[in-house]
């Protein structure tokens, strides 16, 4: 029998909240799902590129903040780019930037953002962590919330 939690391929059980996460593309809208849609924690599975599953670390990755990725896709709605989640590995401290999936909980994303205002990432010159709440809300909910 295959143990979901132990598997490096396919569905997995979230190492943080215990939810069973489907790797089905139709549900998440992304090709490689590493993070849990409920708590947004991830697992350090990729090494050189997203979805390569070449990392031997496999430790939990904590969502630490949000960043914008310049979009090369001409169909992208936002001219500023795509809102991305920044994860840091709880074991080896490597940082990764991940696409937000269609079924990720926007409230939890906002929570991650608000928490990120309280601390600094040590390599913040390489990744610019978003600090503008209005912009995040606009990206998440498609509107500006009146002050």
């Amino acid at each position, binding site marked *: 029998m295959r143990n979901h939690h*132990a*598997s490096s391929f396919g569905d997995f059980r979230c190492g943080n909240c215990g939810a069973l996460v489907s790797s089905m593309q139709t549900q998440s809208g992304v090709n490689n799902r590493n993070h849990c849609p409920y708590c947004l924690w991830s697992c350090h599975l990729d090494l050189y590129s997203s979805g390569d599953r*070449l990392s*031997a*670390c496999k430790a939990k990755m904590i969502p630490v903040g949000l960043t914008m990725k310049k979009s090369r896709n001409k169909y992208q709605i936002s001219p500023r780019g795509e809102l991305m989640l920044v994860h840091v590995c709880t074991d080896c401290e490597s940082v990764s930037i991940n696409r937000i999936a269609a079924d990720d909980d926007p409230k939890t994303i906002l929570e991650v953002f608000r928490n990120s205002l309280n601390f600094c990432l040590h390599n913040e010159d390489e990744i610019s962590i978003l600090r503008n709440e209005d912009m995040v809300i606009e990206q998440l909910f498609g509107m500006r919330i009146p002050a």
Partner: protein
Amino acid sequence: MKTTNESDEGVVFRKSLGHYSVRIDGQEIDCELSSRLHKELIYHTSASLKHKVQSIREVDKADPVAVGDRVRFVDAGTGRGMITEILPRRSKLSRPLPVPGQRVFEQVIVANADQVLTVFAASSPSPKWGLLDRYLVTAEAAGLPSRIVITKMDLATQNKSLEQDLEIYRRIGYPIHLVCSSTGEGREELKQALHGVMSVLVGKSGVGKTSLMNALQPGLGLRVKEVSQGDIGKGRHTTSHLQMFDLDFGGRLVDTPGMREFGLWDISPEDLASLFPELAPHIGQCKFGLSCRHDNEPGCAIRKAVMAEQVSPYRYQSYLRLREEL
């Protein structure tokens, strides 16, 4: 029952349904299996089968005789004979052969080989390293040393990552031969490596195994795939039968048809890591000792070795993928 002093000893060089080419003193005898061996076989593999006709097909599925086998046979004259006994094997290279509606059989690809030559083309078709890992594990399980042969080096410029990929295997210690059947590059070194032993070529269809045999020994004149755009490396197999050849410079070489499926036979999940030479030294060092599966258990020494760049992440991934199959 025949007694041994009435029979001769030869080596199986070729076989086709029910017929075995047994070589003795440079002469080929066309042999069949004795009914005793037949019966033994039928009894062994398909106690449940009732019909004789089906049983004969069964012989084809799980042939007890493999190319490379040393056999005793009774010479019936006029170049024909009957195999009465298969002598103990020094080695066997096996893969599982699934038969729809029945169980999986062991297919001995070749018996008594001394080494495995895993053949990949530099390009057209581009190498599948996961398949190489499969071959290497199979050879390790058979206790046979492997060599990695990269053919079509004239096309190497089309494969930018070739050297980097090969470095992984060089570091582990597998000997690598870069050859080109059209220019003769690497031929002499390979001949030396083949000298005096029995080697078997394994590789997908179209990688150039038969071309390599022809280049090593021009007299063979074996049929290779015709050069046609788009066809190379895909589709039809050119070599349809496994066949062994005596090499003029000493040694024996077995050409195999490209094998599409190459599963692992009789390897337990617990043993798999020991068949990756670079993982072997870390076994037993994990927090959970010998019960560690080396997947995501805490304190796994193998994962640690990958993180420390002592083990290639690609090889580790091959280990995990193969493990899921077992």
